[in-house]
């Protein structure tokens, strides 16, 4: 876990107050330093098909998108609306059966109005990802260029 910071509460709230995130059962693992880590537990009603028992790729897409937003909140030290411009995900392999999925996102660059984020998702070992992602987001209520808190 990272050190408590003023943005922690805003980041934690993102995992629970957004209806889609609450419905999927997202939880914040850590946030800070323009990074966020989020987890979604395995649930049978979120599997791609009953035989494989793996969480559906759609769940992975949702948590990656959401965790990217949390990394931006961590980078800006406040929770302001963001809108996803584009999101590319490489699905390296399906998640292991009956396994939850974790995501780490890093907001590695920010302009006055756009944030760039990389993320990867894993089931049991962060070094053995199930998916990698790259995304760009429009920032609302962005501070003037040069005054942002970007990492």
């Amino acid at each position, binding site marked *: 876990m990272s050190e408590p910071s003023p943005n922690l509460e805003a980041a934690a709230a993102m995992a629970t107050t*957004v*209806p889609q995130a609450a419905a999927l059962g997202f939880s914040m693992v850590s946030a800070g330093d323009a990074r966020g880590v989020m987890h979604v537990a395995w649930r049978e009603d979120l599997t791609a098909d009953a035989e494989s028992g793996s*969480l559906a790729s759609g769940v992975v897409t949702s948590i990656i998108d959401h965790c990217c937003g949390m990394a931006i909140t961590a980078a800006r030290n406040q929770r302001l609306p963001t809108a996803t411009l584009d999101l590319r995900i490489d699905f390296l392999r399906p998640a292991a059966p009956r396994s939850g999925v974790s995501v780490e996102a890093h907001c590695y660059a920010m302009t006055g109005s756009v944030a760039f984020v990389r993320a990867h998702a894993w089931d049991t070992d962060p070094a053995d990802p199930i998916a990698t992602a790259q995304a760009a987001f429009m920032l609302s209520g962005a501070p003037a260029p040069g005054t942002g808190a970007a990492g």
Partner: protein
Amino acid sequence: MTREEQLQAFLARSPYLRFLGMTAELAGDEVTGVLPFSPHLIGNTLLPSLHGGVLGAFLETTALAQLALTQPADRRPRTLDITIEYLRPGRAMTTFARADLRKVGRRVANVQVEAWQESRSQPVAALRGHFMLGED
């Protein structure tokens, strides 16, 4: 199995699609994905608008459904990579999507999908993706 039965079997196999509440309709061999609005799909409560992940999953599933329908059963498609472009907020209303199979090769298919709400000429999101057919 008729195409309609194939499509319904594809949708029924996935618990996650029931969670989304996604359905699909068939016109000839063309699938239209249908995603009725539901409060648990919201990503931004202020607008309100659909979660970006929900739109991505809906587009991806429409591509998979269209592929599953036009390929033999032993070539069950698996998603390799997707690029989702968000064009407009997905509002609190039904969303539709259609997939265009741009190239179906021996092992990989390239598919483009567009989602819209009130008007097809004003898409809310688009997806380009590669899908593995059969074994890797």
